[in-house]
């Protein structure tokens, strides 16, 4: 979680330096979901992420070095400058394609899961998507197909706009989406569902281990709604740093989060909550925390600087990669 947090704070710094090519997204406050799901996943599993992908990738083991280069569109990223922030991929980690079209990933994940089942491959398919996906018709067509074909698919719906006080419940006030309880919908299609507080990383890990295990065993779909509370820096169209970068020392009351961050940091940040619980359990010391954080910060700084030094792809590479060579020829 900490690596993800520091990576995304690094993204906000890059944005501050004005060198990101365009609009981007951070998943601050959703790190526990990524960590728990990827922790429960196995090597052969295939994962579909979305426009908010940093957490999923890092939790799956992606290296911040190429990820920064990819975000910047540089050589050293995973696509030689072609994909970028909306299409962060890692085929080597079972993440072959990332769509940024809201909703499309669900049917694609269903199709991938169909192949896994039909070819009797090891590995299930996991699709991360936002609550907004349930406003798109593609979601419904997808889950109906998943239920029809009975495919090994874990749907992880990241409902990231839940008010703090409702996070442990399973309903919210309708906004542009009128279903009060998201899980009612997959349930209607006969798909088992679970709902969980996304600030509770231990609970998430237990649940996801069970869910992924069940899907692996039963070769049938499962739907999980993970409820998180929006990071205050994620309220406008462009993400921004809400007050300050996370200071883990807030966990032992050294200094205080800036006002705009205080309530969120206290009640809704899965990272700070986890650190506080680890400290309280005596599982780590303040020194451990500070040391680990420093190491991660150094790793992020180095990854970022090396990405910035990475060259632009050669102009005429723009004309390549349109057509894939025929089977067997490459």
């Amino acid at each position: 979680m900490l690596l993800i947090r520091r990576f995304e704070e690094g993204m906000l710094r890059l944005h501050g330096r004005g060198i990101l090519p365009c609009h981007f997204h951070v998943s601050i406050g959703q790190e526990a979901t990524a960590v728990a799901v990827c922790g429960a996943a196995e090597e052969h599993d295939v994962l579909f992420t979305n426009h908010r992908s940093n957490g999923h990738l890092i939790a799956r083991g992606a290296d911040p070095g190429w990820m920064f280069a990819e975000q910047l569109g540089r050589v050293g990223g995973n696509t030689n400058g072609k994909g970028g922030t909306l299409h962060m991929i890692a085929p080597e980690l079972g993440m072959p394609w990332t769509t940024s079209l809201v909703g499309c990933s669900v049917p694609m994940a269903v199709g991938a899961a169909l192949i896994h089942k039909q070819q009797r491959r090891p590995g299930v398919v996991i699709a991360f998507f936002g609550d907004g996906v349930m406003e798109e018709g593609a979601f419904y067509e997808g889950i109906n197909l998943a239920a029809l074909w009975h495919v090994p698919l874990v749907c992880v719906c990241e409902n990231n706009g839940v008010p703090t006080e409702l996070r442990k419940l399973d309903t919210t006030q309708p906004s542009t989406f009128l279903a009060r309880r998201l899980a009612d919908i997959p349930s209607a299609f006969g798909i088992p569902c679970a709902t969980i507080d996304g600030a509770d990383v231990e609970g998430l890990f237990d649940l996801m281990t069970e869910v992924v295990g069940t899907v692996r065993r039963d070769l049938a779909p499962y739907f999980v709604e993970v409820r998180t509370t929006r990071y205050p820096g994620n309220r406008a169209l462009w993400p921004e740093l809400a007050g300050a970068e996370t200071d883990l020392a807030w966990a032992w009351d050294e200094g205080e989060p800036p006002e705009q961050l205080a309530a969120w940091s206290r009640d809704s940040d899965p990272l700070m909550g986890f650190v506080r619980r680890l400290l309280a359990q005596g599982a780590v010391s303040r020194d451990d925390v500070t040391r680990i954080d420093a190491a991660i910060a150094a790793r992020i700084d180095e990854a970022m600087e090396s990405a910035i030094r990475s060259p632009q792809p050669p102009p005429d590479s723009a004309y390549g990669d349109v057509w894939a060579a025929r089977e067997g020829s490459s």
Partner: protein
Amino acid sequence: MKMSYLKGLALAIDEAMAAEPRVILMGSRMGGHLTAQENEAFAGVLDRYAERIFMNVPIAEFGLAGAAVGASLAGGRPLLSFNIGSFMLHGFPPIVNEAPNVHYTTGGRCSAPVTYYALGGIRGGGSSQHSHRLQAMLGNVPGLQILAPATAGDAYGLLKWCLLESRNPTVFFAHTDLLLSEDEADGASPLLPVGSARISRAGHDITLIAHSVTVPRALAAADALAADHGVSAEVIDLRTLAPLDAATVVDSVRKTGHAVVVDECHKSFGVNAEIAATLAEAALSHLKAPIGRVATADVPIPYNLSLEREISVTPDKIVQGALSTLEGRASC
């Protein structure tokens, strides 16, 4: 009065909503990432007609596109904004296969006066999925008006015409790179019926045929051609792609004998193809050289900005295309 393209859109909507209570506004914002500028341009409008504004909507392009058709059938005059044009693909079943069929299929008894608005085009870092220019695709749909004006005044005049006068379904393409461009225009300009091109710059050696964002680029190229090469280029702004004002294009090329089509669509099967084909059919004997086609390369849009620029239409490439054509060579 100097006015930005965004302001031209806002003014058209404001005046149309004031004049016609059947006009309603649905969908997403219209200015892409230019939130502040959009807010300024639209200041007051959204409040003034609050009960006819449905801009807090789910992510449901198909549903909204269909609802807009239904609203138009029931006597509304809806404007539905998709914000980014690529998302319009989700709405193709209603946009392509409902609205444009209504008038014809009902034997002229009903019609679907719905206007779809989107920011078309390559926008800087939009990568493959957010950079579409769908005007050529939609051009193959009979019964659909397609507008892609290049100036604030035309944006104002055409949008207002759609909202107040047109009884046909229309797709209106703006472009991120045009929204802040300014030109002389004011709310007193006449409504602008679809189907007429504009000669943006007169010339006699070669005709550059452009629309939307390629108009300012063609004008820049024409400046460079004049300054650096002594070539007098005529620039045509098509403004509306369907119906197409073929006569203006053909007349110009009959005069200059040379044509370069400038188009932000991918080259193959782009708008440029239709214009070139029109000329090859109707002005062949006047052509002194092959028709140049300067368009976006036939590759998905890359993320990196220098790659993106590499495959895009630039004034430089237009100049090169024009010079090739004038030398009698094909431009690519």
